[in-house]
């Protein structure tokens, strides 16, 4: 039986963090030149490490092998070096180490969480998975079947169906229109050799980004970085995809499904995270629909009229596209009313400045709520990773706070006028809505079979 250090059972009350900065972010460089951002916190014996590989996401999937990057994320923790799938997973499980990989359209990522007492082996297993994944036939087949099962299961989920159609129509002609989770047939065409090649070509030291939070010092992390990532090769960075203009704007697509509600998604162009007005747009969207209770969309559509259980608007941030999307659902007969009520709020936001109260509430929330999302080591590491993946400066959180503090109602209205345009919306409906003028039927789900 493993010895559990006495450390674990002590409850040491550490002094609260210095509070002049949102987060005390340290920048670390290893002797081998690998960089990372670190937030130390020794109050719980847990370490969270998250890392990303730029450009290694689903946008690289060949059209006939959609889901390749996703499959890589499913299989990289299924055996490495001398350890086959069961042996590798058993070690993780016995040491309570959470190691997993993920993939979105743009990037590939990994996440490690370990107790301090097991960190040595946790880092060894992570290095092994990164540099010597096995891709044995058995786990590859198992993960292929698991993905197909997920797709079949999702076919009963109207939210999933709506999102699939939105991606297909809004990004028509661009690689983002592909199904990054794969299709029932494309998954069949992905084998161990494809995974090996994708891994070799796209997982490298030079597209790596690392973030760590928890029970680890700067000095220790510097040495650890070389142990975990030092064995990665230098790769030729993947060619970036083209930037994308939103397609099929002004159109309404309907997928027929016999359910009591209509699922509604509406999207128009958004704003880049590097744009000087980005924080003003966040203030605007807080008032419009991101905040749930108190937002205008929730107030008008749920609270006053009882037309939905939930309605939200939110920004979509991708490498080559920025969108502003509304998602909701309503009883079938209210579909047309729902769409027009959303557009009314769009116009109102452009035509009148927000009230002083709305402005102050948005500022207090956007600034004051940040610490609430940073209460676990995993949350903190996740934020550090996303800031780096988006090329944000290390003082981004302070800059953000200043921009929000200085916003005026006139600024917000200017941004609303420049950004909001309901004529540029693409709309997707799933259900059996009637009386939707100009609705284009979708007969078959794209990139699913």
């Amino acid at each position, binding site marked *: 039986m493993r010895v559990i250090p006495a450390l674990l059972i002590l409850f040491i*009350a550490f002094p609260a963090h210095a509070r002049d900065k949102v987060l005390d972010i340290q920048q670390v460089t290893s002797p081998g030149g690998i960089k990372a951002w670190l937030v130390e916190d020794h109050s719980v014996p847990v370490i969270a490490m998250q890392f990303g590989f730029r450009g290694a996401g689903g946008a690289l999937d060949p059209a006939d092998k959609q889901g390749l990057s996703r499959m890589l994320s499913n299989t990289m923790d299924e055996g490495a070096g001398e350890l086959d799938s069961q042996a590798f997973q058993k070690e993780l*499980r016995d040491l309570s180490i959470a190691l997993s990989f993920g993939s979105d359209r743009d990037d590939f990522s990994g996440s490690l969480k370990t107790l301090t007492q097991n960190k040595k082996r946790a880092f060894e297993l992570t290095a092994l998975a990164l540099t010597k994944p096995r891709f044995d036939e058995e786990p590859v087949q198992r993960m292929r079947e698991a993905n197909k099962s997920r797709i079949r299961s999702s076919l009963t989920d109207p939210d999933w169906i709506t999102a699939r159609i939105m991606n297909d129509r809004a990004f028509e002609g661009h690689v983002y229109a592909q199904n990054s989770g794969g299709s029932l047939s494309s998954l069949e065409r992905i084998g161990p050799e494809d995974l090996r090649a994708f891994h070799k070509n796209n997982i490298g030291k030079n597209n790596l980004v690392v973030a760590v939070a928890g029970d680890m010092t700067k000095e220790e992390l510097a040495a650890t970085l070389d142990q975990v990532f030092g064995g990665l090769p230098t790769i030729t960075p993947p060619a970036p995809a083209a930037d994308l203009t939103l397609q099929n704007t002004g159109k309404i697509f309907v997928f027929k499904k016999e359910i009591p509600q209509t699922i509604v998604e509406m999207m128009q162009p958004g704003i880049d995270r590097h744009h000087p007005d980005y924080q003003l747009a966040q203030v605007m969207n807080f008032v419009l629909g991101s905040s749930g209770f108190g937002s205008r969309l929730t107030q008008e559509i749920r609270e006053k009229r009882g037309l939905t259980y939930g309605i939200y608007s939110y920004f979509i941030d991708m490498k080559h596209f920025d969108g502003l999307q509304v998602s909701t659902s309503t009883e079938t007969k209210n579909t047309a009313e729902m769409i027009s009520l959303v557009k009314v709020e769009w116009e109102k936001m452009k035509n009148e400045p927000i009230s002083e109260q709305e402005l102050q509430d948005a500022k207090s929330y956007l600034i004051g709520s940040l610490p609430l999302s940073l209460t676990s080591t995993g949350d903190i590491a996740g934020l550090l990773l996303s800031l780096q993946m988006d090329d944000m400066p290390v003082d981004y959180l302070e800059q953000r706070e200043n921009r929000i503090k200085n916003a005026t109602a006139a600024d917000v209205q200017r941004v609303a006028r420049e950004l909001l345009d309901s004529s540029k919306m693409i709309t997707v409906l799933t259900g059996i809505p009637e009386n939707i003028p100009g609705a284009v039927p979708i007969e078959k789900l794209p990139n699913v079979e």
Partner: protein
Amino acid sequence: MQRPGRIAVSLAAALLLALPVSYAAAVKKEAVKEEAPVRQKIFNAETFKLDNGLEIVVIPNHRAPVITHMVWYKVGAADEDHGVSGVAHFLEHLMFKGSEGLKPGEFSEKIRSLGGNDNAFTGQDYTAYYQSISVDQLETVMTMEAGRMRGLNPPPEQVVSENKVILEERRQRTDNDPRARFAEQLNAALYINHPYGNPIIGWADEMAALTWEKCKAFYDRWYGPNNAILVVSGDVTGQQVYDLAKKIYGPLRPVPLPERTRAAVPPLEASVTVRLEDKTVHQALVQKAFIVPSHHQNAKESLALQVLEELMAGGPTSRLYKALVVEQKIATSAGLSYQGSMWSDGDMDLYAAPLPGQKPEDVIAALDEQIRLLIKNGIPEAELSEALTRMQAEAVYARDSLSGPAMIFGYSLATGATIDDVEYWPYNIAAVTADDILAVTKKYLDPDNTQKRPPVTGYLLPQEIPPAPAEKAAP
């Protein structure tokens, strides 16, 4: 609105701290009493009680200058009168629709404007309201929460529009998706004559007939300081919270509380199968559901069931996944899930998602076979000790959170557990033996035990398309 899921499973699922090795060994040998070490608590929560009956739990956590403030009422959907299903959950919604000093909707708006988040949820045995916010707003949120403990007064038009909202919620969560409808039907078949058989959100017809009068009656009967637990975690001390709570919640008068009753599930003699075929289903699901004791009903058996769950379904190298998914290749997922944090009966679900071409009945048989193997061959010592170690590591991770520990204390206390049950859970789990686990497996899950209560077997299946008529009709 939530059904207690994996997090509510158990003191097991989310908890505790590593045991000193010496203590675990001492338990196994049941010896060396004179050297009994001081037992370490996981969270070191501080507890108080006000004169009006309000229980208080404080879990200091000084990582960031924020707090989570929760009020748990020891009442839920299972306390509803027959025929008014959904009233507990509808009341939870109306709690945001106007109370002492607050207009409809103002509660959440004010929390947002102070940089905080708030929400609420309803279970079978509890209803909880919470805010996460900067520590300097603790007094404000307490004042607002105390104001709606006895002073709820939503205007009638708000009740009408919110009734539409909960019906939309039901359509969105349940009616739109055959998987949710299947779960609801299976649950109704399992808990015969027992309130847990009703969905927390309610049956649609009864929800549509809910009125303010019905909500008010439920509110007056159950909402008061003597039926509530205040849980605060974050950057505070016990004394600070106690002093504030005494000032703000202290003046509230206790209410006369009815006894909490749950009709018993009668003996079942026939075996029941729930079968939902739907043309929109493309991935089948099979399930066997058993009534088993909750922690509140039988702590010893519940602890054994928690370890059984870990052995059978604690990850990709556990028994069920390894057998059905990795080796036999007849399913894409397989597991066992225990709902043990209930005031009344708990339940255990064996489940799998069959691969296409597999007969659903064969997959059920393969699940049964794994139970038989466990009973026949026993549990190797190494496998058991590894499971216990993993469960105890979960305790350290549980501390890496602000609201997680508050949740654990809330649902545990609301379903009849004690503070010590939570704080010393690792010691209790470490004392579980292979014999304990085999005993509960035989008693409740053994497919060959004809004395046990029969389970409910469920099949969610794609609708068979009737074969096309033959090309040539018979003459």
